[in-house]
C-alpha cells in the first residue's frame, strides 16, 4: 500500500505539488498521467525518500517516507526519469554493482529480471553509455529490480523510447505485476493510461481525477464532437470565439469540441460555423479518450 495525504512541496515560491492525496493498493499498476512540469517527478522523489515534503504525510508499505526512509530504501526499486546508471560501466558490471550494494547477487534474483535481462544479455560486455534508448531502459529496469523490491517506482520509463519497445516495456510491467510487485509509473503519453489499473491525472501540481481508465472516460460527462473543415486554422479560432464553447483543441486531424451544456447543440454550432463561411464542414459525435479528459480540463475556459 502506497498512501499520500495532503503532500505539498514548494521550491521557493514555485509549486512542486500541492495537497496531493491518493492511495495505491498492493499489486496494482498505478499510472500518474500528466504533462511535463506537472509535478510527477517531485511526487516520485518524495515517495522514494529523496525529497522531504513540506507538508503532509506519505507511507510506502506502512513505512513513513521521512522517519523510516532507511527501511523503505530496501523495499523499493526506483528508475529515475533520466538514465542514471554508470555509462562507463558495462551492462553486467552495472547490474552486479546494484545487486551487491543490496547485499544480494545476480544469481539469487535472476528469475525476477530474467525476461528483461535476457534481451540485453548478448550485450553484457558493452558499456551502458553505448546502449540504445530501449536497451538502456531495460537495463535500468533490471537494476531497479535486482534486489527484489516490493514496490517499483518508474518515472517516465518510456519517454524517448520507440513504439515497439514501449509496448514490450508495458508487457514486462504486467509480468512483474503478476509476481506481486506494486508498480507506480508516470508517463506523459495518454495512450499508456489505459494499460494501468488506475490512473491519477495530474496537472500544475495537483491531481484532478483518480479513477480506472474506463471510469475516467465515462466520467467525461459531455458530448464530444470531432470537427473538420477546409481551413482548420480559422475553424479553431472560430470555435474558441463561440459563445457556448467549453473546450476546443486540436486532436490529430480534427478539432475536438465540448460545449458548456452537455449535449452541445450540434445544429446551432453547425449553423454558426456555416455562417462563418466554413466549407466542407464535418461535424460528428465521437468517443472520448483519456487525452480528451486531459485536454478538456486544460483548455477549459
Amino acid at each position, binding site marked *: 500500500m502506497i498512501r499520500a495525504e495532503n503532500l505539498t512541496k514548494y521550491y521557493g515560491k514555485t509549486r512542486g505539488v500541492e495537497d496531493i492525496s491518493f492511495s495505491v493498493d498492493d499489486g496494482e499498476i498505478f499510472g500518474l498521467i500528466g504533462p511535463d512540469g506537472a509535478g510527477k517527478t517531485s511526487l516520485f*522523489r518524495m515517495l*522514494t*525518500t*529523496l*525529497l*522531504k515534503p513540506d507538508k503532509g504525510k506519505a507511507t510506502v508499505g506502512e513505512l513513513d517516507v521521512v522517519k523510516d*526512509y*532507511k527501511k523503505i*530504501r*530496501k523495499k*523499493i526499486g*526506483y528508475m*529515475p526519469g*533520466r*538514465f*542514471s*546508471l*554508470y*555509462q*562507463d*560501466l558495462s551492462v553486467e*558490471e552495472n547490474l552486479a*554493482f*546494484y545487486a*551487491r*550494494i*543490496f*547485499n544480494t547477487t545476480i544469481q539469487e534474483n535472476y528469475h525476477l529480471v530474467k525476461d528483461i535481462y535476457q534481451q540485453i544479455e548478448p550485450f553484457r560486455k558493452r558499456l551502458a553509455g553505448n546502449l540504445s534508448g530501449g536497451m538502456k531502459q531495460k537495463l535500468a529496469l533490471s*537494476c531497479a529490480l535486482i534486489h527484489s523490491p516490493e514496490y517499483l517506482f518508474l518515472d517516465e520509463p518510456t519517454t524517448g523510447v520507440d513504439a515497439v519497445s514501449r509496448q514490450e516495456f508495458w508487457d514486462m510491467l504486467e509480468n512483474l505485476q503478476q509476481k506481486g510487485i506494486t508498480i507506480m509509473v508516470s508517463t506523459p503519453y495518454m495512450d499508456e493510461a489505459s494499460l494501468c489499473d488506475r490512473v491519477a491525472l495530474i496537472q500544475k501540481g495537483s491531481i484532478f481525477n483518480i479513477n480506472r481508465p474506463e471510469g475516467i472516460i465515462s466520467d467525461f460527462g459531455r458530448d464530444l464532437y470531432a470537427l473538420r473543415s477546409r481551413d482548420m486554422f480559422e475553424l479553431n479560432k472560430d470555435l474558441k470565439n463561440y459563445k457556448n464553447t467549453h473546450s476546443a483543441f486540436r486532436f490529430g486531424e480534427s478539432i475536438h469540441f465540448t460545449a458548456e451544456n452537455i449535449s452541445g447543440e450540434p445544429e446551432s454550432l453547425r449553423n454558426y460555423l456555416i455562417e462563418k463561411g466554413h466549407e466542407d464542414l464535418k461535424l460528428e459525435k465521437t468517443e472520448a479518450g483519456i487525452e480528451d479528459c486531459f485536454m478538456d480540463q486544460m483548455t477549459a475556459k
Partner: protein
Amino acid sequence: MRTILFILQKEFIQIFRNKTMLPIIFIMPLVQMLVLVYTATLEMKNIEVVVVDRDLSQTSRELTAKFDGSEFFIIRGSTFDLKEAEDMLRENKADLIINIPDDFERQLFREGNVKVQLQINAINATAAGLTNAYATSIIADFNRHIITESINMVKPVQMKKINVASSFWYNPELNYKIYMLPGILVILVTIIGMFLTALNLVREKEMGTIEQINVTPIKKYQFIAGKLIPFWIIALFELAFGLTIGKVIFDIPMEGNLLVLFAFAAIYLLAMLGLGLFISTFSSTQQQVMFIAFFFFLTFVMMSGIFTPVESMPEWAQKVNVVNPFAYFIKVNRMNLLKGSGFWDFRQEFLALGIYAIAALSLAVWKYRKVV
C-alpha cells in the same frame, strides 16, 4: 564494510577505464618535475650589463673585468654615452648599467674615495634586489683589493679584519633544485588528490547517477569513503613516484625517515581530499568544483612559502598559514628530506593536520545529503 569494498571495486574500474587517467598519473608528474624544478629557481645567472666607462683607466678596466669574470654577469656592451646605455635598459637589452665617472682613478687615489653609479631594471623587484646585492658585493670585493694594494705600496702592515666565512647548512651548495623539488612534489600530490576526488564526486551529480545511488541503503560514510580511498592511494603512489624521479634525476638527498614522510602525507591527503569532497558536496557541476578548488589551491600555494619565504610575508599572512595545510606539508617535506627531521620534530604539524583531516572529512560527510 563489504559495501565499501564493492564501491571501491566500482571506482577503480571507472578510474582505470578513463583514458586520461594513466597519463595524468604517470606523465604529468614527470613533465611537471622536469620543467618546474628547473624554472622555479631564484638563482640569478647571466645578468646583462652595459658599462659606461668614461675613465678607461687601468683601475676602471679592472673593475669591469671583475664583473665580466663573475658567473652572474655578462657584459653586453660598453659606451661613453649614458643616454645610449639607458636606452638599452629601456629596450630590455640590459638589466644593469655601471656608470664609472671620468675621473674615477684619479679621485680614487687622490681623495681615497669615489662614487660608482648602478642603475638597475626593477620591473622584477626580486631580480633587481639580487642584482644589486651581487653587484655591490663585487664592488666591495674590488674595493678591499684596492685598499690592500695601495697600503702595500707604502708600507706593509698586518691588516686586522673580520673574516666572515659562511657555510650553508642542509643545502651546502645552495642548490635551488633540491630546495624546490619537495615543494613541487606537494603541488603535484595535491592536484592529483584534491582535484580528482572533488571532480569524481560531482560527476555523479552531473550524470545523475547519484539519484540511483541515493535510493540504495548505502550509508553516507560508505559513499564518501568509496570516493576518498582510491585517490588517496593514487596520490600516495604519486608521492613515491615523484620521490623516485627526484632521486634518479636530481639526486635529492633523503636524510629523514621516509616512513615519517609518508605517514604525514597520508594525513595531509585525508585533509586535502576531505576538503575537495566538501567542496563538491555543495557544488552541482564540475565547473563549479574546478573554480572553487582552484581558489583554495592557488591561495594555499602562494601563501605556503614554496616560492617566497614565509618569513618575509606580513604578520597576518603568517598567522593565516596556521590553517594552510599546504604550508605544513611543504615544511615537513623539506625538513624531512633535506634536514632529516623525524616524527618528534613534526609533532605539532601532525597534530594540526590530524585535526584538519577530521574536520574536513566530518564536514564532507555531514554536508553530503542523500535527501534534499
